[in-house]
């Protein structure tokens, strides 16, 4: 309860939460407000925002409603960001936990692999994965998860290293608990809080990665994604720059909201670090 009180005392954290809830509300209400396919033709192409009450945010190059695409895009961004984060954190905690708990050669091998993933630029690996497995919603999400796990793995490993010889773990060992029980049941719950806070960073980066991929037309072209719309708007950038501008603001607001919430959680859970 203390943590919640501390969270709401920070204006930045509250703003972040409000923005995030607004984006989530957009994602939920998309189907109700815009029952038609957001990628279907809706009217004349390139209607400027605020000129036609039917299209408050205007239409894109091929006459599709931008507002509808923004609402549905919130779904895609949150979905890809969320699922990719779960994948990255799951792989990361697992690898970090085993490396930190066992140490020795297990740690050596796992950390070598982590290092390899960190040496190869994220986005280049993402391009390779997309080149190999194609760019559907599922493959893109999994690919983003796969390129994002090293940081959570390192964090989990560091936590495990500091926790593995504490009294409560030794007590468990004396009670005859098996390694897996100790790792999952005893140490992991204690190691998890910083990792969960870090998940907000992973999520922010995942949303940015997906939008960059979509902008390059390497993400799923059959869904209304903000990055897709920016890429499309690039063709008419000279005059109708609003087609690219509007979805960019949506991405900015979402990533900002996720980061603010993450930072707020971090400050609320580690009050001693707050002064920094």
């Amino acid at each position, binding site marked *: 309860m203390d943590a919640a009180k501390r969270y709401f005392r920070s204006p930045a954290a509250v703003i972040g939460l409000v923005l995030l809830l607004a984006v989530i509300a957009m994602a939920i209400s998309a189907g109700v407000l815009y029952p038609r396919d957001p990628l279907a033709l809706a009217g004349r192409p390139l209607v400027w925002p605020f000129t036609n009450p039917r299209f408050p945010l205007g239409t894109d190059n091929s006459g599709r409603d931008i507002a509808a695409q923004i609402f549905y895009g919130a779904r895609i961004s949150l979905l890809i960001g969320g699922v990719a984060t779960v994948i990255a954190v799951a792989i990361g905690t697992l690898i970090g936990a085993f490396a930190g708990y066992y140490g020795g050669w297990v740690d050596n091998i796992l950390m070598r692999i982590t290092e390899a993933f960190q040496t190869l630029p994220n986005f280049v690996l993402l391009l390779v994965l997309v080149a190999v497995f194609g760019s559907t919603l599922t493959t893109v999400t999994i690919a983003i998860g796969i390129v994002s796990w090293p940081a959570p793995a390192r964090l989990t490993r560091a936590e495990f290293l500091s926790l593995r010889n504490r009294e409560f773990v030794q007590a468990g060992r004396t009670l005859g608990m098996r390694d897996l029980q100790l790792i999952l049941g005893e140490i992991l719950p204690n190691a998890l809080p910083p990792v969960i806070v870090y998940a907000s960073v992973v999520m922010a980066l995942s949303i940015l990665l997906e939008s960059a991929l979509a902008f390059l037309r390497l993400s799923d072209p059959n869904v209304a994604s903000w990055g897709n719309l920016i890429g499309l708007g*690039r063709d008419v950038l000279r005059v109708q720059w609003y087609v690219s501008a509007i*979805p960019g603001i949506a991405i900015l607001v979402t990533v900002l909201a996720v980061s603010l919430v993450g930072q707020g959680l971090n400050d609320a859970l580690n009050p001693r670090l707050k002064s920094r």
Partner: protein
Amino acid sequence: MRIIGLAGRRLAASIPTLFLILIGVFLLLQLAPGDTVDALMAQMGGGDAATAHELRKFYGLDLSVPAQLANYLWHLVRLDLGFSSIYGKPVATVIMERLPPTILLMTASLSFAFFFGLVFGVIASRAVNKWPDTLISTLGLIFYATPSFWFGLMAIVAFSIYLQWLPAGGFEDIGEVRTGIFRIIDIARHLILPTLTLGLIFLAIYLRIMRASMLEVLNLDYVRTARAKGLDETRVVTQHVLRNALLPMVTLIGLQAGTMLGGSVVVESVFSLPGLGRLAYESVIQRDLNTLLGIVFVSALLVIVVNFVVDLLYARLDPRISAEG
């Protein structure tokens, strides 16, 4: 000398990592639909199965996967990255042609982000929780959340289309031939917007780290000593705090080298710069897997080299590191 030995040992330790990456990506690319020959045949406008078979034999693609891998690594040891069928040149040549704009862009962005991150970080830490700090920290958060390609597009709209101050893309003006200083100025003008675009997110990260690191060092005892012996604030900051506060910033250069290279893929596409990142994108689109693998190798190598340099810098900034080694 000891510093070089220490950094050298870390450099040697990264060679297995490099091979791990190459083997992994090589095996991964085996799963890709279509190979070099398919891409080549598509460029030629199709052909019969016999030609395809001949070509596969010529490129050694009829061998088993382990044999192909051994072949590739053996060529690699002699710095031969294979042949790009799309560009009709050796991959090494294609990459070397594309490397300079990327290196230039990365160096410029890094310098921009590092310098302004440092300055803003120091300003924010000197006025902690007052309005300059709030302003800088807020801007940092917004820059961090800004998709770089979007910022680039908006910068083009503002500075190239409306104000017409700067070129919208390309590496240099190909309309007229320039030499010497005029060519340098021309290239610099072309690189202003890409540098800002790529550097923005790193500026946000650097200023945040610099601020935190300054606040931490400012609380240490030796700073109190420096103040107590009567030094004014400027001298305390520039001569005592800065050097120690810089350490995390330098670490970050090494950690972010890969991210920066990845970011240049997007930025080079926005500004149609003929660099390595754009080459990576093109080779994905054109299914030029040989070139893609070459880029993987070169970019991993680049990250390793940057980290080597960072190790040296680090030891220079903090003598304790080489003393302990």
